[in-house]
């Protein structure tokens, strides 16, 4: 990635990546005496697929939770769209256009797929209580508009056949896809995926990879993802941050990271002195 400029760069497959949209500056996060994240800095550029990898307990999920505003780091700054982000509640972060999926699926099990995905449109629905109750005027109009957006996402992720099925009855792989659908329904500018392929078989992983690439391609969504499966990460992402014991040990293109000695040691294991 020698051609990196402040305005962006061009990937191997010819995609144009834009300027930095989010930047983590010297983030340190502690839980009591435990240091989960220690002085980590990295950036996410517009339109790229950015992966965060690392062995178990490296602090990846904590990092994602910092981005999504669930944890507040003791030190360091989060810069978003050129401005320093004040301490925010998760819903405020969501309002800024950052959506996420969860490692352990967090859907409403008793509700249908359609209703679950509709909840992703909550930011776009602001009709008053009365209007909602009698379902006339603004509420009805909003429902129609948002349903259309949601239907396009359902079509895109090929889940039409389970539109009216309660989520609780779905197999795991499909639930993951529904979660992705809900996150997409928010039309985020940054999409955070916490282990989108965990627990999937090879075929499901291939499908999910395809969807992630298509989302990035079709909607131009910036994607930050955490993943265990190295093969998947290397194939999908444009740049990779590697963490180990709360520290950043590598950052760069998949090829650069693959050859980084510190990364090889972290994954294959070396004797600690």
């Amino acid at each position, binding site marked *: 990635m020698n051609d990196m400029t402040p305005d962006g760069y061009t990937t191997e*497959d*010819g*995609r144009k990546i834009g300027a930095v949209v989010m930047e983590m500056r010297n983030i340190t996060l502690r839980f009591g005496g435990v240091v989960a994240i220690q002085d980590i800095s990295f950036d996410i550029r517009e339109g790229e697929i950015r992966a965060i990898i690392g062995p178990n307990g490296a602090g990846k999920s904590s990092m994602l939770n910092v981005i999504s505003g669930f944890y507040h780091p003791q030190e360091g700054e989060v810069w978003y769209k050129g401005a320093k982000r004040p301490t925010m509640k998760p819903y405020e972060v969501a309002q800024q256009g950052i959506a996420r999926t969860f490692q352990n699926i967090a859907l409403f099990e008793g509700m249908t797929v359609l209703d679950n995905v509709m909840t992703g449109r909550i930011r776009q629905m602001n009709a008053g209580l009365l209007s909602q109750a009698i379902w006339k005027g603004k509420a009805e109009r909003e429902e129609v508009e948002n*349903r*259309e957006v949601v*239907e*396009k996402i*359902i*079509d*895109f992720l*090929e889940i*039409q*056949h389970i*539109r009216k099925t309660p989520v609780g009855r779905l197999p795991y792989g499909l639930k993951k896809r529904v979660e992705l659908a809900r996150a997409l329904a928010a039309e985020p500018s940054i999409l955070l995926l916490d282990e989108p392929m965990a627990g999937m078989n090879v075929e499901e992983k291939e499908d999910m990879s*395809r969807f992630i*690439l*298509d989302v990035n*391609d*079709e909607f131009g969504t910036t994607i930050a993802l955490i993943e265990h499966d190295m093969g998947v990460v290397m194939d999908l992402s444009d740049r990779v941050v590697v963490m180990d014991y709360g520290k950043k040990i590598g950052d760069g293109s998949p090829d650069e990271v693959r050859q980084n000695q510190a990364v090889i040691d972290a994954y294959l294991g070396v004797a600690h002195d």
Partner: protein
Amino acid sequence: MAQPSQATDGMDSVPALLQRNATRFGDKPAYREKEYGIWQCWTWAEAEKEIEALALGLINLGVNEGDFIAIIGRNRPHFYWSMVAAQSVGAIPVPLYQDAAADEMAYVMDHCGARFAIVQDQEQVDKLIEVQEGLHQLEHMIYVDPRGLRKYDHHKLHRFIDIQEQGRAAHYEWIEDLKARREKLTYDSVCVMLYTSGTTGKPKGVVLSNRNIIEASKSSSEFDKLTRDEEVLAYLPMAWVGDFIFSIGQAYWCGFCVNCPESPETMQTDLREIGPTYYFAPPRVFETQLTNVMIRMEDAGRLKKWLFDRFMAHARRVGPAILDGKPVSGMDRLKYTLGNLFIYGPLKDTLGLGRVRVGYTAGEAIGPEIFDFYRSLGINLKQLYGQTEASVFITLQPDGEVRSDTVGVPAPGVEIRISDTGEVFYRGPGTFEYYYKNDESTKKTKDSEGWVATGDAGFFEDGSGHLRIIDRAKDVGKMADGQMFAPKYVENKLKFYPNILEAVVFGHQREQCSAFINIDLTAVGNWAERNNIGYASYQELAGNPRVLDMIQSHVEEVNRSLADDPMLSHCQVHRFLVLHKELDADDGEMTRTRKVRRGVISEKFEDLLGALYDGSSEIYTTTEVTYEDGRKGAISATLQIRDAAVVPVETAKVAAE
């Protein structure tokens, strides 16, 4: 030659029918497709505009008269428009099976020499790009779904809507050309070319003229009194002649609406929402639906199950008679009406068949139990016998004369004769023109007087005048002792058990018959669940001793029923095995329309076939399998070979000697 036929009122091509429909009932729905959860609708006038825009775009792109245009996709209005647009500009549409692997597609693409292809999505584009090296004629591809294709080189790749847009922009440049090309179409011009799936050898391109398609559509529509108020659901492969006749031929002739499902998985829901009045399905679809109903009834409460069993028994007794208008006592009628209110009606509604006025099944023999089940519910399900070369219709069952063991009387205008060897020959207005680039096969199949050999053996039944089909003529063989061997007959008997998905019977030139059997994963899987039998894979379930016991009991029942048939009692299955994999079109073991390829199977499983006849009780084997994306793998298993009890048939043997 080029004179418009009197009988069709100048309507001598599909584009001409489109013009008529758009003028006469332009505001009536022509196409519906469920998209984004809503049924989107196009009237005949709108469809005509869409097709015109596409046709203009095709001319603009450089399509010449006589060019072939390959069409690859699932049933969507866009592809039906593509066919008619191709015809409008004087080109010949060639629909292909969209699930075909890349190399299968390469053969057909190369054989027809298509310069253009209109395809569904990235998957099909990728397949064609993969085989493009060998296809020198292929110039442009047009795709409908842009997803994932943004970064592809678009010099020769176009979006469907862009081509339509270009067509609209170039309206004044090309409209006169389009009209001129449309005017040139006659009853004799080629309407469509369809590839037969071919149980043996390479697929053949069947060329059908406007005469073939329009005459066949016209007479069959009159036969069943189809009107423009029919609703059909288009879900069968577009490359298959049946879909072409139902969704284009008859739809354009009558002017009824073609409904396209949202996706293959939602077909059942969409069927219910549309409630077709005219419905066509191969026996397998009816079998699957019945299996699903039965599985769900097994899980129903005791009262519901009791009611269901009781009323179904009554329906089986009087239902078909009521449907055929035969006399039935008042009490039975009352009971049937009650049943209709509580059981049959809701069941038909669940199946999506509540409004079916005319239903057809064809392609394979249907099990009498399955056939009777639907008829007893009051669904007018009938059989027809046909093939691509006949533009579908050879025989049809008239209302009121429906039986499961015959295929009906000759279709209007079709003549049938039975040769000395028992093979069925036909000729009629639907009889195909020729096989493309294959004079040899054309001569072999169609003689100078226009008689076409069906390759099926059959006879006319005394009294009723209905045709009965025994078997594929070339499958009928002789056993070692010289007696007739009819594998299909035995296989169909076996397949009538829901647990048996597929069976291949061997016996030609041999002392005794034996069989390969495929279990039905849905039915056997459900049975296993209810009987607490654990299994991790198809292979494991297929090898389970209790499953083998069950299959053995089915085989023995078939043997007992065969023993009663003096002509075929020697075809009893002596030994069988249950295959460790499902026979699949991707592995070449079946055609895309799911007919078994005996030659391929006996070659591929030569070791297993050997074991059936050398007396061994088990055999270890490794088989190559092809995955959906074309990659290859191998599976291995040890298969049990079972001996099935047979009923001794000494008398028959003596008679034969």
